[in-house]
């Protein structure tokens, strides 16, 4: 069965100043798939996410979301596409001046003409899904780390997006809460059939939720495959990452001396 491609990245190159961050990324995600983008810090995974979200412009390459090139779209078209995508940021990025309920309502207020009561009900429904019923009148500063992530997730899915992006769901959470979030991601896919892209460095959570995993290292994709394929990869850098081994780059004596004295 030919699966519909929802996200397609072709030969993506990006730079931060002179420094190359992403060096020719190719990636595609099918409808309903959970794709985990994994990599250490500095691997370029956050940068890749920012490009997928259309927050940065690439130096070269094509990014297609739902079949449309996001870097060739007009602002108005992009605005339309934003209805189809939800994002849960690493730190939640809830608006500090609004209650949890208002935070979840915000996308509805911007994109729909629904009346306030309907919006409130819809927001409550999503808060139920993430087990935050009854917390809608609290301010984000009154929530715990795990609650903030769940509230951010509720805001991300309030428009029933086709694509959900989740940045580091388990960063800074205890194992139990982070396992609950994994469950929640699986539940969301099952209930709404969303395509989900998760960026993480947590192995355990990646293996649990992923249909496929992309391992990123120093701006390049080392491997894209199922959990099994990644686990059985004979690439040394993939294995280093999986077994938490420190990198052992061969030391070049001359190069080392030159770096010190130059």
């Amino acid at each position, binding site marked *: 069965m030919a699966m519909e491609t929802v996200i397609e990245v072709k030969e993506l190159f990006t730079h931060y100043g002179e420094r190359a961050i992403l060096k020719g990324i190719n990636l595609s995600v099918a409808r309903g798939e959970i794709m985990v983008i994994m990599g250490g810090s500095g691997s370029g995974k956050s940068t890749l996410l920012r490009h997928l979200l259309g927050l940065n412009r690439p130096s070269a390459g094509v990014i297609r979301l739902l079949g449309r090139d996001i870097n060739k779209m007009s*602002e108005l078209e992009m*605005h339309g596409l934003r*209805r189809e995508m939800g994002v849960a*940021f690493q*730190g939640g990025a809830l*608006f500090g001046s609004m209650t949890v309920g208002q935070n979840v309502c*915000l996308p509805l207020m911007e994109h729909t003409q629904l009346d306030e009561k309907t919006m409130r009900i819809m927001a409550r429904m999503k808060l139920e899904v993430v087990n935050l019923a009854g917390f809608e009148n609290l301010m984000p500063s009154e929530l715990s780390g795990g609650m903030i992530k769940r509230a951010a997730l509720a805001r991300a899915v309030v428009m029933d997006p086709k694509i959900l992006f989740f940045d580091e769901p388990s960063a800074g959470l205890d194992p139990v809460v982070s396992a609950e979030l994994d469950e929640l991601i699986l539940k969301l896919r099952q209930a709404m059939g969303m395509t989900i892209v998760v960026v993480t460095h947590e192995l355990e959570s990646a293996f649990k939720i992923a249909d496929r995993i992309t391992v990123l290292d120093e701006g390049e994709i080392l491997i894209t495959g199922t959990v099994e394929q990644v686990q059985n990869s004979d690439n040394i850098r993939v294995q280093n990452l999986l077994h938490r081994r420190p990198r052992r780059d061969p030391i070049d004596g001359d190069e080392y001396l030159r770096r010190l004295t130059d």
Partner: protein
Amino acid sequence: MRHFPEQLGRRAMLGLEELGYVMVLLAESIGWLFLGHSRRQPVRAAAIFHEAMQIGVQAIPIVSMLCFAVGVMLAIQGIETLKTFGAESKVVIGIALSVTREFSPLIVAVLVAGRSGSAIAARIGTMQESQEIDALRVIGISPIRYLAAPLMVATLIALPTLTILGDFVGLFGGAIFTAIKLNITISTYFLRCIEILTLEDVGQGLVKSVVFAFIISLVGISNGFQVKGGAEGVGRATTRSVVLSISLIILADMIFTFFMNR
């Protein structure tokens, strides 16, 4: 030392870049104000009102106090100086003209720059750091339209209004001291003021205050959006925006005073 020309060049480039950024910010804000409705993203009156409360209404007590003090101070100095020529009674001209043309707009602007310019930079900077600005963008809300435009309009309303208030309170401060010292009634003093003052004098102050409003809001907003580097970055942007806006206000004041009094 040989790096000096290079440094100078770099600084100049950075300065130009920032000026360009501010101009784009201004153009986009104006664009959203007029075209927001057609793009289904209007700049909301409620947001403008909310900001105007903070920038304008809440500054009333302190503005009144300072302008009163300046009025009294002008009266003291004026009477003291004019005594040498035995022309104390001419003091009203001095107070009336300098309060409306110069001191009221200047004091109000410096105060609002310290009070609200810094708050604007700190708030937008914090939002930038916590990815709230990114969150706005991925929801499909232009941060310019949602944050910048209401702040700009609110400042443009608040500053001239506060300046008019400052005019009255400043004149009143002068009246109190003059009345006691020169033994005239306060109503005589104000009748003299009305005789002396033309619409142009008051208008000159108001034109200046509009220019100052642009300076305060643009400097605060642009510094906020350009925050990098965590809490320290937010602090730096806040300080920079206050120092920069007060400096620009005083320079602009000098230029305007020169051209308007030719």
